[in-house]
């Protein structure tokens, strides 16, 4: 099997055993990027020199018997929303074109300290606003399963990079589903941790109270291994949880044995049925049946307030975003555009012209929506109500977790749609996140893993598992069990069934 198709855990074992080098691995992935990224467009920036230098340093540590971490030397791709010192960080926006941060985000600093060479920065919807990566100012990313289709969003670049074997690991961020939904439509694994579980320092904020960084991988164990590298308390993030992480990789390894005896799994009745593509529902139901075979007990749970989750989200998120994005004012960094026909423009004139030129449609829509929801006449009716709905959703989860250890649903209501299909229909686009948003509003962790291909279109379906706050380890145990049972049925990974991209070395 090609090196490119191996999991990060396998690559780490090979590095530890001296069967390969980080330079060889990193070069193989850089070659794969050169071969297929013209068609996929998962990357906005590739750092060949930096990645190879980091790989050589990793090989030197391994040779000296002092690896920095279990994943030392395994290359990774990073979503372009995290600050990387010396590497461009654009957030998929023209307003940050060419911006090179003078510091590293905590997650990136941890990756560097653990010895993972950074291959480059991945494409995304502008400022993480979208579910298809079509809102990137630098052009869309294409789904490796069908290049005419979207890879999900906002982290479509990271998901497509691991699905196309351009990187064994990637970093994503999830505000309303931006790690899990791309995972679902590309046949990969994505996890949003408990809010506060991974530092947001150096993450360009969209909605502070919802944003979380998380791992994007091809296997559940890889997700746990990466989560252990980037997770944990950070004094630079005031919302960081000051408690040690649970043993995540151990939970994944235990789960992979496939025994779920005594685990209570709650099926959320509001997230399924009407509005869900038949093949998505079918693969979901089959996966639930597999959990039963593994010994899990299934209970039906109802979360009646979820019907209002999308509305609450589309008030809270734009409100926070409109305030966050005020920092792009053309004064200290980023694009500065002088208004036409004005030879003595004020700072405010320059601000207006720069923000018009630098922001795309979706960003403008959300800033205006947020400005509206926060204006004095509407604040109580909209933003205040949304915050109350947020309480109701947390209460629904609390009641559900009294009956079940984990909750499950399809990750997204449909498989990947065609590029362009929903671009000018914001509401249809927003519905992609209907099943993932509740977890962000409640701050609980969620995992998406592949559940198979929808019979009607042959495209990947995602299975979502949710756990109470700080119980991320449960996702790894149940996720790894389901993954093992499904792969036994398929006779290998789901991605083995993906078409081979032109020129691919995988």
């Amino acid at each position, binding site marked *: 099997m090609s090196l490119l198709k191996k999991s990060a855990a396998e690559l780490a074992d090979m590095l530890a055993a001296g069967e390969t080098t980080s330079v060889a691995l990193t070069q193989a992935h850089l070659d794969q990027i050169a071969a297929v990224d013209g068609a996929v467009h998962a990357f906005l920036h590739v750092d060949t020199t930096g990645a190879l230098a980091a790989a050589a340093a990793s090989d030197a540590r391994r040779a000296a018997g002092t690896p920095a971490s279990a994943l030392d030397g395994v290359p990774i791709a990073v979503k372009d929303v995290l600050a990387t010192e010396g590497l461009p960080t654009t957030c998929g926006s023209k307003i940050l074109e060419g911006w090179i941060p003078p510091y590293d985000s905590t997650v990136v600093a941890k990756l560097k300290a653990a010895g993972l060479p950074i291959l480059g920065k991945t494409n995304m919807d502008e400022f993480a606003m979208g579910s298809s990566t079509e809102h990137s100012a630098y052009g869309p990313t294409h789904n490796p399963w069908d290049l005419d289709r979207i890879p999900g969003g906002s982290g479509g670049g990271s998901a497509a990079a691991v699905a196309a074997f351009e990187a064994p690991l990637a970093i994503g961020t999830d505000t309303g589903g931006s790690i899990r939904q791309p995972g679902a439509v590309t046949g990969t694994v994505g996890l949003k941790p408990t809010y506060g579980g991974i530092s947001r320092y150096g993450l360009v904020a969209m909605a502070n109270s919802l944003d979380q960084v998380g791992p994007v991988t091809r296997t559940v164990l890889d997700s746990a291994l990466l989560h252990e590298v980037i997770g944990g308390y950070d004094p630079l993030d005031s919302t960081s949880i000051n408690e040690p992480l649970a043993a995540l990789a151990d939970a994944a390894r235990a789960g992979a044995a496939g025994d779920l005896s005594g685990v209570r799994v709650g099926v959320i009745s509001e997230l399924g049925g009407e509005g869900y593509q038949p093949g998505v529902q079918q693969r979901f139901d089959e996966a639930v049946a597999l959990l039963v075979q593994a010994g899990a007990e299934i209970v039906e749970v109802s979360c009646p307030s979820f019907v209002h989750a999308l509305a609450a989200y589309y008030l809270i998120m734009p409100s926070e975003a409109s305030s966050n994005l005020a920092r792009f004012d053309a004064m200290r960094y980023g694009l500065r555009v002088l208004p036409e026909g004005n030879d003595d423009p004020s700072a405010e004139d320059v601000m207006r012209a720069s923000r018009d030129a630098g922001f795309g449609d979706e960003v403008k829509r959300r800033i*205006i929506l947020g400005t509206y929801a926060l204006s004095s006449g509407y604040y109580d009716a909209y933003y205040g109500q949304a915050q109350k709905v947020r309480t109701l959703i947390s209460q629904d989860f609390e009641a559900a977790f009294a009956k079940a250890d984990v909750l499950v649903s399809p990750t997204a209501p449909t498989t990947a749609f065609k590029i362009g299909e929903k671009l000018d229909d914001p509401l249809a686009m927003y519905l992609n996140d209907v099943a993932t948003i509740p977890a962000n509003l409640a701050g609980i962790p969620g995992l998406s893993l592949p559940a198979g291909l929808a019979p009607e279109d042959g495209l990947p379906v995602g299975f979502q598992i949710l756990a109470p706050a700080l119980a991320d380890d449960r996702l790894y145990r149940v996720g790894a069990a389901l993954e093992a049972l499904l792969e036994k049925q398929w006779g290998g990974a789901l991605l083995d069934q993906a078409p081979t991209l032109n020129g691919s070395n995988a």
Partner: protein
Amino acid sequence: MPEITRDEVRHLADLARIELDDAELDHIAPQLSVILESIASIAEVAAAEIPPTSHAIPLTNVFREDVVRPSLTAEQALSGAPASEQQRFSVPRILGDEQ
């Protein structure tokens, strides 16, 4: 409500310091109306006695020791500036004609 007029959108864009031309207003205003219509139902959902949640996980203020630690140099801080002068950000005039 929840109809949002073209003029309201122009006013909101103005508050948000985004210059929108007529074509953009024509494009965005109807889309915002549709979005607002879909979220308007929220006004009737939650009763007065339900407490609002701003953060899912309760927050407490975090202090650090009041000690000097490394920070960005002036050169680093100015490295992304559109214009700078004498180790400072250089900005257009800040007072408008009316002030």
